[in-house]
Structures are given as C-alpha cells and as structure tokens.
C-alpha cells in the first residue's frame, strides 16, 4: 500500500494491538463493575461509581502519573509483577494498561445502561420456567444486554486508540514499542518536515474513530429494539451512551 509508509503501517498495527488488548483486558472488570452498579444495592455504591468514572474527568497526565506510582519500578504493583518477570513501563503492555484504565469508564457505562434496560420481570419469568440463576443469565440477561456490551467494547476500543496523556506519561513515546497513533502524530508535529505524516496519520485516526462510533451507535439502537418487555406498543427507547 502506498498510502502509508511501512513505519506508519507498523504504527497503525501497534495502535490496533494496544487498543484490542486494552479493550479485551478491561472487559471482564468492566462487566463485573457494570453488573454491581446496575444490580447490587450497597453502601458505598456512589463512591464506587465515582471511582470508576474518575479517569474520565481526571487530567490524563495525572492518571499516567498514578500508574507510574503503582506500576513503575518502585511501585507496589510494579514490584509484584517484576517477580514474574513482567515490566509494563516503557513497553506496549504498559500502553495497553494505560488505555484500558482510560477506556474502562466508557465500557462500564455502556454495559451498565444495557443491563439496567433488561426487564427483571423477564428474568423472573425464566426462573418460573425452570431456569436457575446462571442459565437465566446466559439465556435472558446476557443476550438482551449484548448489543450494549458490544457497543461498550467498540467504544472502549475507540477510546484506547485515541489515548495520549496517560500513555505518554506512563510509558513515554518510544517508536515501535509505545508509539501509538496519537503519540506518533505528536512526534511528527515536532519534526520540521512532519506535516505530511501528521496529515496521513490524522486521516487514519478519523476513519478508525468514526467507524467505531457508527458501529457503536448502530449496536445501541438495535439494543433499544429488543431489550424491553414483550407485547404490543413497545416504546422505542434510544439511549445515548456518551
């Protein structure tokens, strides 16, 4: 392909890898948090909700610094992982961790909305028909929430692709290791002859982000069509996840 140079393609590939790993890694935690926030009433729920949303409003550079404190060479998590020979600092895995933390609130939000939209009376109906709690979850709750879960995954992936502040603070801007699309664009901006590179990578970013948003919106709309109760006159529910 002549659109991008080999180096630029490898930047795109690294971004997709970091974004994909970040999203898939965050998914189990995001789902668990969404479930707890949607279904469990406990004291401190507001605090947990706020904590989950913190990376959304905190300056990303602060999030990156906190990751440095925790996962850096001297941090408790960093020293723990070092026992297993795992280093996150200045590695693509560290970029994935930073992206995952930044994507988590969006994923929790989308999944939580879709779980809250599942009519618990349908779950009750399934139970009276002989389904235990787990089967009820697998056959009723999860399928009905699935469009929202997929939308959350797409959003989380898109958010990861755009991650800049926390990443550059935590793992720096190392070509071939931690230099994802936004970091490469930032790097090229510092170069006297980097304008063409910036433009090409920016177009790639726009295309990827736009595609992700469209997919997420389509999934959310489809979800609004099925997750309510059955019968006639079903209200058309349209939820915005952002």
């Amino acid at each position, binding site marked *: 392909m002549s659109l991008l140079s080999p180096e630029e393609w490898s930047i795109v590939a690294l971004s997709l890898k970091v974004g994909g790993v970040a999203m898939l890694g965050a998914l189990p935690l995001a789902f668990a948090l969404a479930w707890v926030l949607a279904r469990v009433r406990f004291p401190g729920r507001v605090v947990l909700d706020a904590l989950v949303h913190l990376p959304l409003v905190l300056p990303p550079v602060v999030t990156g610094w906190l990751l440095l404190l925790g996962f850096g060479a001297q941090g408790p998590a960093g020293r723990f992982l070092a026992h297993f020979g795992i280093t996150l600092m200045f590695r693509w895995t560290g970029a994935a961790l930073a992206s995952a933390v930044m994507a988590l609130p969006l994923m929790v939000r989308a999944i939580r909305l879709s779980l809250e939209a599942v009519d618990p009376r349908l779950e009750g109906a399934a139970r*009276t028909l002989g389904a*235990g709690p787990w089967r009820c979850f697998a056959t009723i709750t999860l399928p009905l929430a699935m469009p929202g879960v997929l939308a959350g995954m797409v959003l989380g992936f898109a958010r990861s692709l755009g991650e800049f502040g926390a990443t550059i603070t935590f793992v720096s801007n190392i070509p071939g290791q931690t230099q994802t699309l936004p970091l490469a664009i930032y790097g090229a901006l510092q170069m006297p002859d980097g304008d063409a590179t910036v433009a090409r990578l920016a177009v790639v970013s726009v295309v990827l982000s736009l595609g992700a948003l469209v997919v997420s919106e389509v999934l959310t709309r489809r979800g609004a069509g099925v997750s309510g109760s059955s019968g006639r006159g079903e209200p058309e529910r349209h939820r915005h996840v952002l």
Partner: protein
Amino acid sequence: MSFEVEVQIARGNRRIAVSFAGQSRLVALFGPSGVGKTSVLDAVAGLLRPDAGRISVGGRVLFDSANGVNLPPEGRECGYVFQDARLFPHMNVRDNLLYGWRLARPEHRWMSLDEACAFLGIGHLLERRPRTLSGGEAQRVAIGRALLSGPRFLAMDEPLASLDAARREEIMAVIERIRDELELPILYVSHDAAEVARLAGEVVAIGAG
C-alpha cells in the same frame, strides 16, 4: 390437589396477610387492585420471599419459614401466566414455547409442542417475534409456554386484563379447557367479579388491611 397458603408479606409500609386453603381446581384470589394479590402469586411462584408463613401445593411444601424451606422458583414447577405475557423479546414464538420444555425433565413433560399448538391454536405463529403478536396471541403463547414447562399447577395473574372483549372470551374459553380437560389446578388472580364467578370453584376475597 390443593392450595394451602398462609403468608405475611411486607411491601414498603403495607402489610399483606393472607390465609386460605383451596380444594377446587380453580381457586380465585379476588379483590380490588392494589391489595397485593400479585404479591401473593409471586410468593407462591417463588419470585417474592414472604416474611413468614407456609405455602404448599398438592401436599408439596414450597415455602415454610418455620422450617427454613424456600424452594427457588425453578424448583416449584409452577406455570406462571403474567398479566403482560412477558414473552422473551429476543426469541421467536417457538423458542419462547420451548424455553421451559427444554429445561424440564423428560418425565415431567406432559405436553408436546404440537399438542400445545393444537390446544391453543398458535401453530401458525411459531416463527413470529413476540413484538409482532396481538395481545390475545401473546397471551395464548404465554399460556402455552407455561403449560409446556411441565408444571404441576398454574398461577395466573389477571390474564384477561389487557385484552379487548372478544379476546377475553377466547382466552376465558382456553382457561376453562385447561381447568376441565387438562385438570390442572389453577391459582387465579382477578379483580373482575364476573370473570371470577364464571371460572372459579372457590373464591378467596382479599381486601385491604
């Protein structure tokens, strides 16, 4: 077969205390809206845990606070027909009908899909989605779904309330056939005196307080 129910349920600041023993094939819980008839039905089906009391159906104890018995809904073999049908929107009619049938132990099944379709006249709806059904069609499918799960008794919560007059007559006839032909005990909730007079062998009046 008999229903023996004696429960206390606190919902918010309201207390519901009901005690009855019904021997008929169709026992109606009759009373004005909002006195907690549905809560009693939910307690029998296992969807709501009473604060205290005892529930047994056909001699089988489903709930007994004194002895710590509280069977989960999936263990009560209660075919619950809800006022609003409550069909699963992500499945077609066939999968709705077979949901409980597939979960039931083979020896507990006493009706096949073909029999249910013939009994309720819903064979032509099998591939449809619930949202495309009329209220009467949805309610017949809901009844079929409950029957196919192999229940020992039915719990019906105002199954006619959301239907027009013609559909009410149609579903009422279906309920009479369940009562008389299938000989399945039914605990039936209604606020409609005429309905109760026509269907019920015994009436339990539930009032406020």
